[in-house]
Each structure stands twice: as structure tokens, then as C-alpha cells.
């Protein structure tokens, strides 16, 4: 864009030209060509060149600062405040979301902890019940009762008495010659050929009993108790304490045919 022109021009630049200018012979295009082509150095040319230089400078700086830096540079104070507010809001929202997710995670962890705890308790209970039902092996302090019967005089009910006595004294797991004693255990047969739960056992009968030895031993040895009764029958009963008795005879878990567990 250039300028310069015939000196007869007058009027204003930025605004609409006021009145009709003096009639000229040249058309606009001719004037443009004239101003552009023969490069003449005139005061008007130089001044306009200076101003256009300033304009170009400003233009370049502005374009540069706009493309170089983020939009924040050159933004006005209120815009910056608004942007800051928006960023704050966003931060707040993200914080809230983080808090919510954290809570959720804690909750999930707690519930999985609870589930784990419940599972452990169930497992523990299953073990305890398994010891009672004879489906799992057990070990612990207890006594070994050995009844030798050289004369074949020991009858099944004497063994049953011994079991009852041990139970009364707090025996928790009992095994007789490799047969686990549970609630439904029965003794049958004849002296010398005693059957426990239908399995024949031979003397000496060995009872492995888990329980408190200090309770079990006196219970057997009390006057008129099992030991004395057996000795009357020419049998001998030996009681030995042990720190660790292993009762590992097992019994299959049987599902009852008719009885079902009731919630209460």
C-alpha cells in the first residue's frame, strides 16, 4: 500500500471525504500506479513510511506474542481473574471427585476386609465343628490311656464307661485304636472281640485323648473309677500325659438324610 499522489488532493484520510475534490484527470488506479512505480523520495513518502514501519512493527510483535506465548500473555486483568476462577472451580471439582473416589475405595477395602473376616470366622468354625464331627485331624495336649487285657475280660461297656468318663472330664477329641470317637460311636461285640463302630479292635486298647491332662488323669484314677474297675477285671490301665497328642483318624462327613439346618 502506498500513497503519495498529486498535490491537489485535500480532505481527510480516516473519514469519508467531505466535499467533492477538485476534478482530476487521473483515475484511482492510475494514481496508485504512479505512486508505486517511480520510487520518489518525498516528505510524504518518508513520513508515511515511518508510520507504516511502526504499524508493521506493532503487527509483528502482536502476532508473535500471540503465537509464541499462551493466550494468558496480554490478557487483561479481568480476563485473568475469570480464568483463574475457572481454574479454581475446576480444581475444586477435581478435588471433590478425588475425595469421592477415595471414600469409595476405602469403603470397598473395608467391605472386602469384612468379607475376609467373615470367611476366616467361617473357616475357624468349620474347623471346630470338624473336630467335633471327626472330619478333621486334631492335635494338642492330652493323655494316652492304654488298657491291656491279657485275660479277655474287658467288656464293651467298660470301654464305653471310659469314654463317658473322659468326656465328662472335658476330652475334646478321642481315638480308640485308630477309630475316631464321635457322637454316634457305639461299642459292641464280646470281650476279646470288641467292635467300635463296627470295626473290630484288639487289645491292648489305646485311647488317644486330647483335653486338659490335669483333668483327664484324675478323672480316670479316682477311687471307684475306670482304672480301679478295670484292675478288678485283671486288666491293666496305664495313663500317660503328653504335650502333643495327635488324633488323626478321620470320619467321612455325612450329610443327614432328613435333618436340615434351621436358621434358629
Amino acid at each position, binding site marked *: 500500500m502506498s500513497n503519495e499522489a498529486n498535490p491537489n488532493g485535500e480532505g*481527510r*484520510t480516516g473519514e469519508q471525504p467531505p466535499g467533492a475534490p477538485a476534478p482530476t484527470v487521473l483515475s484511482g488506479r492510475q494514481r496508485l500506479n504512479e505512486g508505486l512505480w517511480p520510487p520518489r523520495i518525498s516528505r510524504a513518502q518518508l513520513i508515511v513510511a515511518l508510520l507504516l514501519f511502526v504499524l508493521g512493527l506493532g503487527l509483528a510483535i502482536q502476532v508473535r506474542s500471540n503465537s509464541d506465548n499462551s493466550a494468558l500473555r496480554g490478557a487483561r486483568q479481568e480476563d485473568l481473574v475469570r480464568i483463574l476462577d475457572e481454574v479454581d472451580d475446576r480444581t475444586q471439582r477435581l478435588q471433590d471427585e478425588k475425595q469421592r473416589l477415595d471414600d469409595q475405595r476405602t469403603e470397598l477395602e473395608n467391605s472386602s476386609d469384612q468379607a475376609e473376616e467373615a470367611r476366616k470366622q467361617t473357616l475357624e468354625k468349620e474347623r471346630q465343628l470338624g473336630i467335633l464331627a471327626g472330619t478333621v485331624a486334631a492335635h494338642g495336649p492330652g493323655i494316652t490311656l492304654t488298657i491291656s487285657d491279657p485275660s479277655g475280660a474287658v467288656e464293651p461297656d467298660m470301654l464305653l464307661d471310659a469314654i463317658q468318663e473322659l468326656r465328662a472330664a472335658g476330652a475334646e477329641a478321642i481315638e480308640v485304636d485308630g477309630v475316631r470317637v464321635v457322637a454316634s460311636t457305639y461299642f459292641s461285640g464280646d470281650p476279646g472281640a470288641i467292635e467300635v463302630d463296627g470295626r473290630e479292635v484288639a487289645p491292648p486298647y489305646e485311647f488317644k485323648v486330647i483335653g486338659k491332662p490335669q483333668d483327664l488323669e484324675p478323672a480316670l484314677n479316682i477311687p471307684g473309677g475306670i482304672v480301679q474297675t478295670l484292675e478288678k477285671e485283671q486288666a491293666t490301665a496305664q495313663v500317660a500325659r503328653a504335650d502333643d497328642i495327635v488324633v488323626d483318624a478321620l470320619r467321612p462327613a455325612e450329610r443327614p438324610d432328613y435333618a436340615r439346618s434351621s436358621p434358629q
Partner: protein
Amino acid sequence: MIAVLGLVVGVVVGLLVRPEVPAMVEPYLPIAVVAALDAVFGGLRAMLDGIFVDKVFVVSFLSNVVVAALIVFLGDKLGVGAQLSTGVVVVLGIRIFSNAAAIRRHVFRA
């Protein structure tokens, strides 16, 4: 011709040298540039109309820039800077378009 060279040199210098704009002036620079553009288009049109006077051009150029910056400055002080600068840009844009239309009629006769 020399004026065109001045513009080109200005752009080149602005791009090559990285002048640090004072922070005070920075917000007004875009508006000032638009105002200067308006003055340039007005001057070009006046030239094509054959009524160009360099003194008038200089005065209109400088006063355009100063007034535009002043309006934005006032707007900032009044708390309506964004709206006011938008208004200034709209007005200057309309004027640039009408001047460009007049120039087009001269150059392309259409």
C-alpha cells in the same frame, strides 16, 4: 513505494528482533494496531480519491491509535475493558470494510 518498503521492513524487524513490549503497553497493542490499520486503509482510499494529504494522514494515524488505546484504558478502569475493546474492534472493522470497498471500486472498477 518507500511507504510499502517501510511496512515490510517494520514486519521483518518485528519478527527478527524480539522487542520487549513494556507490560504497561501490552494490553493496548492489539487495539492500537487495529486502529492504525484503519488509518492506513483510510489513507489509501484518500489517495485513490486524489485527496491525500500527508499531514492529515499522520494526525489521523496517531489520533486513531491514541484514542483507541485511551478507550481501552478507560474501559479497563471502568471494569468494561473486554466489552469496550470488542466494541472498538467492531467499529474499526466496519470502517476498514467500507474503506476497502471504496478502494476496491477504484482498483477493480467494480
